[in-house]
């Protein structure tokens, strides 16, 4: 399971301190999420596109993700122009689209794409473990950070376990259909996955106890905040502040 396809890059954005990127991404997302005005949304989108270009993300997975997000947005376009009251602009059959509705849907589309692009450029360029590490430094409750750490650590292990079980089913000529047999088989697959990961978690905890676990992880590696991180963070936060005032 390739968790973070965008994180292996060499752009300047990849090298920024994860703590700075996390703070900037959160501020960006929050400000854009409550933006109502197209005059502010268009520059916000441009800034996000700029960041994406700067991060030099591989365009194929990038487009695929944008497509998924906009699939949902497309469903909203089928409804919102018609259900929002206002001055009519165009008709589809018996339905009338309102100007306000179209603007509302357009703003929503801009907001969604801006946040998605900014998140990919800022957080996608950080390995997930570094993000958890950054959360730890940003004073997120320790237990929550630990759960996040273990979840990521074992995601791939359990995914492989799942593939192994599924292959075992295939070898025995299992073909998914709309049938009770299929559903029972899948239920047992899920059940077996749960049993195996539960048992694995017991072993993991015992191994931790053997190594003297006392409720917290010592952190050896630390991020170093260099001047370019501070410059980047300040410029970004100023830009986000200006977008908010627009």
């Amino acid at each position, binding site marked *: 399971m390739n968790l973070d396809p965008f994180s292996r890059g060499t752009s300047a954005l990849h090298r920024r301190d994860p703590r700075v990127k996390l703070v900037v991404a959160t501020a960006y997302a929050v400000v854009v999420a409550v933006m109502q005005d197209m005059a502010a949304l268009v520059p916000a989108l441009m800034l996000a596109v700029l960041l994406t270009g700067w991060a030099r993300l591989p365009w194929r997975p990038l487009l695929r993700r944008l497509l998924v*997000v906009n699939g949902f947005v497309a469903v909203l376009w089928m409804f919102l122009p018609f259900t929002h009251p206002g001055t009519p602009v165009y008709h589809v059959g018996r339905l009338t689209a309102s100007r306000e509705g179209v603007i509302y849907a357009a703003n929503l589309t801009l907001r969604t794409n801006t946040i998605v692009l900014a998140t990919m450029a800022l957080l996608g360029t950080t390995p997930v473990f570094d993000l958890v590490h950054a959360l730890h430094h940003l004073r997120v409750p320790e237990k929550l950070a630990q759960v996040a750490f273990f979840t990521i650590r074992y995601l791939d292990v359990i*995914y492989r376990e*799942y593939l192994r079980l599924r292959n075992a089913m295939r070898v025995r000529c299992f073909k998914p259909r*709309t049938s009770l047999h299929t559903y029972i088989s899948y*239920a047992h697959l899920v059940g077996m996955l749960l049993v195996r*990961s*539960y*048992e694995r978690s017991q072993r993991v905890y015992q191994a931790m106890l053997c190594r003297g676990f006392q409720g917290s992880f010592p952190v050896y590696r630390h991020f170093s905040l260099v001047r370019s991180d501070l410059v980047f963070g300040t410029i970004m936060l100023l830009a986000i502040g200006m977008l908010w005032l627009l």
Partner: protein
Amino acid sequence: MHISEGVLSAPVLVAGGVLAAGGVGLGLRRMTPDKIPAVALLSSTFFVASLIHVPLGPASVHLVLNGLTGLVLGWMAFPALLVGLALQAVLFQFGGLTTLGVNTCIMAAPAVAVSYLFQPFAGSLNRILVFVSGALCGALALLTSSVLIALCLVFTGRHFLEVAQLTVAAHVPIMVIEGMLSGFTVLFLRKVKPEILGAAADVISPA
């Protein structure tokens, strides 16, 4: 199951964030250090399970399993699902940072509710009762989640009413599948590893 970024209004986002913080806090308080690996590994298991596509006629639906999560984890479903959703937001751009609170509530609140309702029956010796409680667990949690999504949309704006109705309607067939699968999974767990179902018992009534 999630709502994307940029759709909901600020009051809905803030309310979701506050409620989720409360739920996660309660979940973390019940999570003693020895439960951390179990919660985390079950969280990644539910993450993986949500990638499973189950055929339904010509189409296929993917599992949500938040009812089962609640049954196994109780209040700890809040931190577990928060982590899962945060990962989906950061890794796949499903959901998002600002909707994290809302989405956590949408998934975890029904999970906790069904765990209170059906936990006492999931460990029963009567196989039919076990299946029925597991099935209701899965189906009702999914139904409640889709109703919560609809409510979030309608609170954002009245013009979302039709989209909201469509959301709930679209979830009805998935609800049937989830119910059946959860029922059979609970039956399986009852037979193979009843501790997993019992794990939440001391979670709901903290010792």
